[in-house]
């Protein structure tokens, strides 16, 4: 038998060649790195298209193979994926995180201050709520995303409000950078009178009061506009002798009388259905309800108009629900991940994302509130003009339970303490003091451990 053994030098040379080959710069344009991303699966059917296209472009340019998984939030699949990956310290490089998950996984997320500082230098300060949610212990732990981020202004049936409440919302909030007559009177008290009128006319406002995000968000903005905070920045309850809290509770209980009697069980789709079916004159929602109406009930869609939320004694607030993109600290390709996220947040990319979602997605920078899509979408043309927060709205973005520390706020938010405390009075028959006592005990309990 012939001697087939390799000489030692030969083996070493072959090994060195193999190692060099593996690390050689890519030639002929092949991708050398694979970046795995778990993005939120968009409600809008075409919504994922922009991310797919942008990631494809970026991957080609940087010779990175970008693998995209779109994971939906039905059954909290995305949240479960994040929890599982954080526990096992393995998984995707980039993951979409729901508003409070950045705080939950802050210690396992790669700091992205370098990226955010460059973006802020270019586009100005980021949305305050986005900053509150994505910045922890002084550093950015995630990048506020455009895809999936939404505002929840008032989506009105202008014909019904005109007919039953005497409000010409299109004149009050025209599709221009100015307020119209009556816009300054668009307060929660005006809103209450309109709610009563529409309730009498059998087209009540469709305001959910359950435990889903639409309910928690609009009630959060209502509380903010009364200056009603349940905790301070350190998480200490501020419920005792808090007159603003009592004032807003009293208002919410009065308002609840003019809502459909089943709003306590409404989910995030119930208000959409109420509007689309023509049974409701107003909901607080992103334009998804209008977009579905455009397809299924065009006679409803063409009478919809988006306007800011009403203002309260402490000003006007707009419910804002952002998504964030985090990079796991145990990820393999952190530099590439940062580059991709920076690219996706650039103005052109953000505009492409918003355009693809028919105006649904809200970028995290105020300087990006002038995309053409919000002017041109219709019918009626201009219906989405006031969907992004614009300077003439004199409004601030809000998320319920801010400025509590994220760890506490997330628990209060997920457990919908603000809608429950109202429900205990309006539905459960408790006094405001009893309900607030319960609220304080819940918060104290959440702070322990």
């Amino acid at each position, binding site marked *: 038998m012939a001697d087939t053994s390799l000489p030692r030098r030969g083996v070493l040379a072959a090994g060195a060649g193999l190692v060099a080959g593996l690390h050689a710069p890519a030639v002929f344009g092949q991708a050398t790195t694979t970046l795995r991303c778990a993005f939120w699966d968009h409600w809008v059917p075409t919504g994922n298209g922009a991310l797919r296209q942008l990631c494809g472009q970026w991957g080609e340019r940087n010779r990175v193979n970008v693998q995209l998984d779109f994971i939906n939030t039905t059954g*909290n699949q995305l949240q479960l994926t994040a929890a599982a990956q954080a526990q096992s310290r393995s998984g995707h490089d980039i993951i979409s995180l729901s508003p409070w998950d950045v*705080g939950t996984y802050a210690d396992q997320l790669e700091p992205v201050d370098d990226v955010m500082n460059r973006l802020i230098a270019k586009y100005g300060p980021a949305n305050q709520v986005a900053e509150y949610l994505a910045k922890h212990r002084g550093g950015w732990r995630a990048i506020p995303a455009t895809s999936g981020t939404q505002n929840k202004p008032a989506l009105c049936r202008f014909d019904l409000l005109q007919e039953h409440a005497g409000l010409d919302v299109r004149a009050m909030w025209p599709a221009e950078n100015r307020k119209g007559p009556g816009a300054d009177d668009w307060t929660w008290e005006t809103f209450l009178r309109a709610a009563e009128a529409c309730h009498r006319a059998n087209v009540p406002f469709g305001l959910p009061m*359950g435990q889903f995000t639409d309910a928690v968000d609009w009630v959060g903005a209502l509380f903010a506009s009364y200056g009603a905070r349940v905790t301070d920045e350190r998480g200490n309850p501020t419920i005792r002798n808090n007159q603003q809290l009592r004032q807003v509770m009293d208002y919410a209980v009065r308002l609840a009388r003019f809502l459909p009697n089943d709003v306590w*069980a409404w989910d995030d789709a119930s208000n959409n259905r109420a509007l689309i079916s023509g049974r409701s004159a107003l909901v607080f929602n992103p334009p998804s309800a209008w977009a579905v109406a455009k397809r299924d009930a065009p006679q409803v869609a063409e009478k919809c108009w988006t306007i800011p939320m009403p203002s309260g004694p402490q000003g006007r607030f707009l419910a804002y629900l952002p998504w964030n993109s985090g990079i796991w600290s145990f990820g393999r390709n952190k530099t590439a991940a940062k580059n991709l996220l920076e690219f996706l947040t650039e103005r052109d990319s953000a505009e492409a994302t918003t355009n693809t979602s028919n105006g649904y997605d809200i970028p995290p920078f105020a300087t990006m509130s002038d995309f053409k899509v919000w002017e041109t979408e219709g019918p009626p043309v201009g219906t989405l003009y006031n969907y992004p927060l614009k300077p003439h709205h004199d409004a601030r973005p809000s998320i319920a339970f801010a400025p509590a520390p994220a760890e506490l706020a997330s628990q209060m938010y997920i*457990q919908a303490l603000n809608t429950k405390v109202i429900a205990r009075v309006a*539905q459960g028959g408790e006094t405001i003091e009893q309900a607030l006592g319960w609220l304080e*005990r819940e918060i104290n*309990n959440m702070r322990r*451990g």
Partner: protein
Amino acid sequence: MASDATIAHAAPVIAPRATPPTTLQKMARRRSTIAFLLTLPLLAVIGGLVAWPAAYAIYLSTLNRRMTAFIGLENYAILLENDTFRMVIWQSCFFAITAVILKALIGFWLAHMLHHIPSKGQRVWRGMLLVPWVIPPALSTLGWWWMFEPSYSSINWLLAIFSVPPVPWLGEMWWARISVIIVNVWYGAPFFMIMYLAALKSVPDQLYEAADIDGATGWQRLRYVTLPMMRNIISITVLFSLIVTFANYDIVRVLTNGGPRDLTHVFASYAFQVGVLSGNIPRGAAVSLFMFPLLAVIAFFVLRGINERTKEIGA
């Protein structure tokens, strides 16, 4: 044994080169060793999929929220001081006990009805009645949700035909609780039915004949023949269902999400809300383990009773 005989027969031939069997060889020949090796895959599965997750859940429940420090039973103490969690305990017990009793009664009644149908037509009815149990509960609950849906309930639509005012099935405390129980009973009763039907079929006809000769009434036949003969199967079915119903998640999650005002939460749905959604995994683990000791004690006594009765029958 054949193998030993072969070795004994071959011994003179190989005697000069034979060496005494090693300890390992002796062990390998033992029946207990072989039995252990054969059960090893099962033990590995049980260890990996039952014991390890359970032990890990217990460990998690002893950590603080950030999972950085051991706090012993503090999570359980915190939970017991919480108004909402005390309500969840009450609701879980109300939900599980009411649903299991209703499932057992309906299952028993259905099994009796089926038992008296001629065997030719029985198969069709049996198949139809099993349908709710065969459909994945998340899917069937979605169907129920459409019927109960707050604004466009099809049940309310039917009621409206008879001028009955709309019922807030999921929006009002007691209606929401009843709705959750209705769906659970609808889903679980066929399981009781099929188990009880099998038990009924195994009761010897001679016992009924003897009872007839003694002039027993229908109630006496049920009380003194059927029920004693079914006692074991009733115990095991109720125990099994109680555990599964206490751990129910999908029905509450799909139908009410725990609302209104947390008034329909059960342990599993509340554990998910506290643990995964609110990011407090240790406390969520504590919620999910809360009933474990009580259910373990119930299971111990029920299984012991079954064993004793089995021995009595055997003797």
